[in-house]
Every structure is written in structure tokens, then in C-alpha cells.
């Protein structure tokens, strides 16, 4: 069973952090066409930031792009948030290495979306203004709920940022031949520029452009691969199995016991529905109808993207594997086999060279970099809004703060998060960050999601229940990750894990729900009574949108 878990987590690292880019990284020679295309992207997006800055006048503009993004645009932006560089390179790398298991993994990431549409998207849009804490605290006491929700958001954002920064530093080092520190600082500075000046409007458009470029590039690669086989999957698969063995066509070791299968499913589904940078996107559209369309388009783009990565992974097996130009000879001398330069996560990058030469390699490299920038910008904006809107404006100032002042605090928070991301990125360069994203998802699923979901649907939820249950979920998630196999065994060097599973979500989410339920129903205070009475009005607004935040005037 341990093998399964090792594999599961390797997959996670691969997918999220690009951490599996192997061992000591050798800097590559400067890649000129990649750098030219990257500069074009940066130039263009800075232009957008300048345009967006002129339109970002109030806190509402800053947090939600004025609320005027269409469902299609938002669907593209949500898909962009989800299609990080790590998921592009990680999933295609997983398919390249393990075949079918890569598909199993990507399906896990997709199936949360329909549930988000049916349960979360519309009430979230109808009740909230800028952050999901607006919804959670709608009829509960502001201060404790906001502090808890903001802690969950900030923790998720910072953990995710660490993973992205470390992954991006290594990736850029490899692709562009830049030094690790230079790469991390460059990413940090650009993301602060986009967010502080352009707010959500710039962040959204950067994300949309990147999603378009990534989908176009991936489509081109998949079509090029299929054209090679006269668009016959049978021919592609049979060639791939000749090179790599028949086992790549069947489930391998990714999931083989029910507990870890369910726990992984819970983490991916509920975690996705608790990610603050994803939830925040629902406030950028004008109403529940557009929010609903956003998820429809996003699910389509993400599903299409995963089918492409599957083809790309197989394409890399037939066009990259064993080719001398992509072989890592130094590694082969030590370990044998046919390792590719930079590790399995570089499979898609090498394939881009195989199908489109230096020019297309440059394009895909530039898109990978753009992807990192767009994703960290969205994360930073979500973190900054938790600080400025939830902690500063709602908790510290009790809501008595003007929009300009609030926006100023967001910008300061953005700069602070940028500095934290750069410092952490450099600090964690040589650390084992395998647990980081697993922990972020566990926190999102165990603290953010249960409070959000029950506040929308469960009449008897009280502040006491939400705060105690949510904190218990948060604490359980953190504790089980520490006692689990990665931190306890791999990092702290103990012989055996106290908690045997790498994904704690099944347990920590259960703790959160039971805790919230128990401490709500036993709450007989006067305040609790008023909170229960306020449910009806909240429910009507969540269902009909009567009284919901509209788009701004311009």
C-alpha cells in the first residue's frame, strides 16, 4: 500500500509544483525564440495592466473587475486558473510515465466542477460581494467568521504560492537558462505589477489570454501527433505500447485501496470548491446566470484540456522517448533506462520541439511562463482581498471604511504577499515541498468548504458551530498532514507514519462537518436563535438574487 501512496503523492507534486523536475537542475543555454515570445507576452500584458489601471477606481473594480466580466470570459479565466503550468506539464508527464494513470488523475480534478455548478456557483454569486467570507458571515457574527475564513484563505494562498514559486523558479531555470533566484524575483515582481495596478481586470485578462494561448498550443501539439497516425488512436496506442509496454493502457498503481481513493476524491472535489482564488472569480460576473455559464464553459475547457494532455503524453512516448536529442545521458550513465532531459515533467516541452522545432518550443516555453504568472497573480489577489476586505475593512474597521482606503490596503497587502512569495520561493528551493499543495487542498476542503456550504444550505448553523467545527477541521487537516507519511517519515525522518494516509481530507472533512453540526445544535444562545431566524431571508436571496450585488455602472 505504501507504494500506492508514494505514487499518489509523486503525482501530486508533479501536477502542482513541477517538483518532479529531476534532481540537480542544469541551467540551459539561453533560448532566444522563447525569450522573444515571452517578452511579447509581458509587453502585451503590461499594456493591458495599464489599460486596466485606468478603469480600476474603486474597491469593487479592484476585487471584481467591476462585475462586468461575461460568463464566457470568466469560464476561460477559471479554466486558466485551473490549467497551471504544473498541471499542463505534470499531467502530460504523468501520462508519459504511467499512461492510463494520468487520465485517472485528471478525471479527479474535473468532476468537482459539475458539483460546484449545481450547489455553489449561483448562491455564492447571489450572496457574496468580494470574498467567500462575505457568504459565510452573511447571517453569522462578522468578526469570528471573517477571521477564520480569512485564515483559511491566506493559508491556502500562501501554501499554493510557495509551490508555484518553487516550481516556476526551477522551470524557468530550465527553459530560459535564468538563475533560480532571478526567475523567482522576476515572477514575484511581475505579479505584483499586474495585481497592484490592474487589479482583477488585469488579472482576469492575463488569465484569459494565457488560457487561449495554452489551449491553442496544446491543440496544435495534439493534432500534430494525431496527424502522424492518420488520426487513428489505435495506431498511436499500438506504437506507444511497442515502446513502453502494454501496461500503460490499464490502471496502474494510482488508486488501489478504497480509503485513499475516496479521500483523494474528497480532497479534489471539496478542495476545488474551497479554493479562494477560484471562488473569487464568481464575483466578477454580473449575476447568477453568468456565474452558471462560467462553470459550463470552464468545465468544457478543462475537460478538453485534459483530453489534449492525454494525447500529448502519448505523443511524447512515441516522439520523445528514446530519441537521442532529448536523452539525459549523464543521468542514464548513473541510473540506466532512458531518462529525458529535465525529468518526466518536461515531456510536453520536448514534444513541442519534436513537432514544431525551435520556434514552437519557444512558444510553448513562453506559454508555460505566462501560465505561471497568471496563476500566481490570481492567487495573490485572492490573498490580498482576504487581508484587506475581510481582516482590515470588516474586522478591524467594522465595515466603516471608504472604498479608496480599502483598495489602498489591498495594494499594500499585494506587495507584502509578493515579498513573502519571493522570500519563501528562495527559502524553499532545496526543501521537500511535497506536502505543501496536499496541505493547501486539505485546508480548503476541511475549513473553507464546510463553512461555506453549510452557511448556504443549513438553517441551524450558528456562529459557535461554524467557528469550532471549522477550526477543528483546519487543525485536523494540519495535524494529519504532519503525522502522515510525507512530513513525519520523509521530512522528519521517523521510521513509520502515525497517520498512514497521505490524503487526510476524508477524515478532516468529516471532523469539520460533525463539529459544525454538534456545536450548532447544542447552541441555545439568544444570538444563535437570531442567526437561525435570519436563514429564511438569506435563502431567498441566495435562490433568487433579490438584493444581490450588481455590476458597477461603467
Amino acid at each position: 500500500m505504501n507504494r500506492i501512496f508514494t505514487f499518489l503523492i509523486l503525482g501530486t507534486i508533479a501536477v502542482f509544483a513541477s517538483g518532479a523536475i529531476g534532481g540537480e537542475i542544469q541551467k540551459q543555454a539561453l533560448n532566444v525564440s522563447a525569450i522573444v515570445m515571452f517578452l511579447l507576452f509581458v509587453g502585451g500584458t503590461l499594456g493591458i495592466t495599464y489599460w486596466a489601471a485606468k478603469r480600476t477606481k474603486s474597491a469593487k473594480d479592484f476585487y471584481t473587475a467591476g462585475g462586468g466580466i461575461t460568463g464566457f470570459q470568466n469560464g476561460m479565466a477559471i479554466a486558466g486558473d485551473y490549467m497551471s503550468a504544473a498541471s499542463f506539464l505534470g499531467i502530460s508527464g504523468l501520462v508519459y510515465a504511467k499512461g492510463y494513470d494520468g487520465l485517472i488523475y485528471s478525471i479527479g480534478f474535473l468532476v468537482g466542477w459539475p458539483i460546484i455548478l449545481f450547489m455553489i456557483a449561483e448562491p455564492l454569486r447571489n450572496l457574496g460581494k468580494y470574498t467567500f467570507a462575505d457568504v459565510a458571515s452573511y447571517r453569522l457574527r462578522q468578526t469570528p467568521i471573517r477571521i477564520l475564513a480569512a485564515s483559511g484563505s491566506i493559508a491556502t494562498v500562501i501554501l499554493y504560492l510557495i509551490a508555484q514559486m518553487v516550481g516556476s523558479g526551477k522551470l524557468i531555470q530550465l527553459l530560459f537558462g535564468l538563475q533560480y533566484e532571478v526567475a523567482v524575483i522576476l515572477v514575484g515582481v511581475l505579479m505584483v505589477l499586474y495585481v497592484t495596478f490592474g487589479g482583477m481586470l488585469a488579472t482576469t485578462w492575463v488569465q484569459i489570454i494565457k488560457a487561449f494561448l495554452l489551449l491553442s498550443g496544446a491543440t496544435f501539439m495534439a493534432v500534430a501527433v494525431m496527424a502522424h497516425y492518420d488520426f487513428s488512436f489505435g495506431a498511436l496506442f499500438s506504437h506507444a505500447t511497442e515502446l513502453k509496454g502494454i501496461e500503460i493502457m490499464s490502471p496502474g498503481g494510482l488508486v488501489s485501496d478504497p480509503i485513499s481513493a475516496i479521500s483523494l476524491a474528497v480532497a479534489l472535489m471539496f478542495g476545488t470548491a474551497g479554493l479562494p482564488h477560484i471562488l473569487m472569480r464568481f464575483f466578477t460576473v454580473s449575476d447568477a446566470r453568468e456565474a452558471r455559464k462560467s462553470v459550463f464553459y470552464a468545465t468544457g475547457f478543462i475537460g478538453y484540456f485534459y483530453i489534449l494532455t492525454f494525447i500529448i503524453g502519448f505523443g511524447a512516448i512515441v516522439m520523445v522517448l528514446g530519441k537521442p536529442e532529448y536523452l539525459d545521458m549523464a543521468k542514464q550513465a548513473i541510473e540506466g533506462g532512458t531518462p529525458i532531459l529535465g525529468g518526466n515533467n518536461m515531456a510536453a516541452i520536448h514534444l513541442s520541439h519534436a513537432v514544431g522545432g525551435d520556434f514552437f518550443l519557444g512558444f510553448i516555453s513562453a506559454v508555460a511562463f505566462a501560465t505561471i504568472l497568471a496563476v500566481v497573480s490570481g492567487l495573490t489577489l485572492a490573498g490580498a482581498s482576504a487581508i484587506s476586505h475581510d481582516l482590515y475593512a470588516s474586522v478591524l474597521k467594522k465595515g466603516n471604511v471608504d472604498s479608496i482606503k480599502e483598495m489602498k490596503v489591498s495594494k499594500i497587502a499585494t506587495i507584502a504577499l509578493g515579498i513573502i512569495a519571493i522570500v519563501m520561493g528562495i527559502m524553499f528551493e532545496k526543501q521537500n515541498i511535497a506536502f505543501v499543495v496536499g496541505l493547501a487542498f486539505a485546508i480548503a476542503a476541511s475549513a473553507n468548504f464546510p463553512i461555506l456550504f453549510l452557511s448556504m444550505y443549513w438553517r441551524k448553523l450558528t456562529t459557535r458551530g461554524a467557528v469550532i467545527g471549522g477550526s477543528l477541521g483546519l487543525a485536523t487537516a494540519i495535524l494529519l498532514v504532519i503525522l502522515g507519511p510525507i512530513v513525519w517519515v520523509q521530512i522528519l525522518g521517523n521510521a513509520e507514519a502515525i497517520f498512514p494516509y497521505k490524503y487526510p481530507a476524508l477524515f478532516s472533512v468529516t471532523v469539520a462537518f460533525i463539529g459544525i453540526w454538534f456545536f450548532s445544535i447544542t447552541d441555545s444562545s439568544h444570538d444563535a436563535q437570531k442567526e437561525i431566524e435570519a436563514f429564511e431571508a438569506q435563502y431567498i436571496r441566495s435562490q433568487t438574487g433579490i438584493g444581490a450585488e450588481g455590476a458597477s455602472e461603467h
Partner: protein
Amino acid sequence: MNKELVEKIKNNPDYKALVSRRSSFAIKLSVAMLVVYFTFILTIAFNPSALGTPLSADSVTTIGIPIGIAVIIFAFVLTGIYTKRANSEFDDLNNKIKDALKEQ
């Protein structure tokens, strides 16, 4: 939203229809997604070789491939089914509720 308005909307038959139809539709679709996904993932957990069956005797393609792709397409189709009905029927009901408030 004051108490009077809450009572008015709560007793509006269109509101009742909206809430009950949408909830039951959303729950059915969620259950459909969960059943499909958990059948898929638990089949892999309990009986991984099931999805490794070749499509035909001379083919290397396993039934796991079309099934996996079908799960992805199924997820997308579900969002489409929900969106279509919500955009027409649910939004119409919702507009009627809002119009009824304006008239009074």
C-alpha cells in the same frame, strides 16, 4: 430584506416551484455525477484489471480509455443540461417572482 417581504416571497407559488424544482434537479444531477465518478474510481480500486480489458482481440486499446474519456464528456454534458434548463425555466420563474414584487 424585511420580514414582510420574506413572508411574501416565501408564499409565492412561483418561488416554491423554483426552489423545489431546482433543488431536486441539482441533487439528481449531483448524484448522477457522484455515482459515475465513484463507480469509476472504486472499480479501479477494487478491480483494476476490469478497465484493462482490450476492446477487441487484436487491439491494444482498453475499454478504460473510452470509459475515462466518457466520464470527462459526461461531466461536461451534465453542466450543459443544468445550464440549459436553468437559463430558460428557472430564470423565467425567477423573473416572474421579481416582477410580482415590482407590481405591488
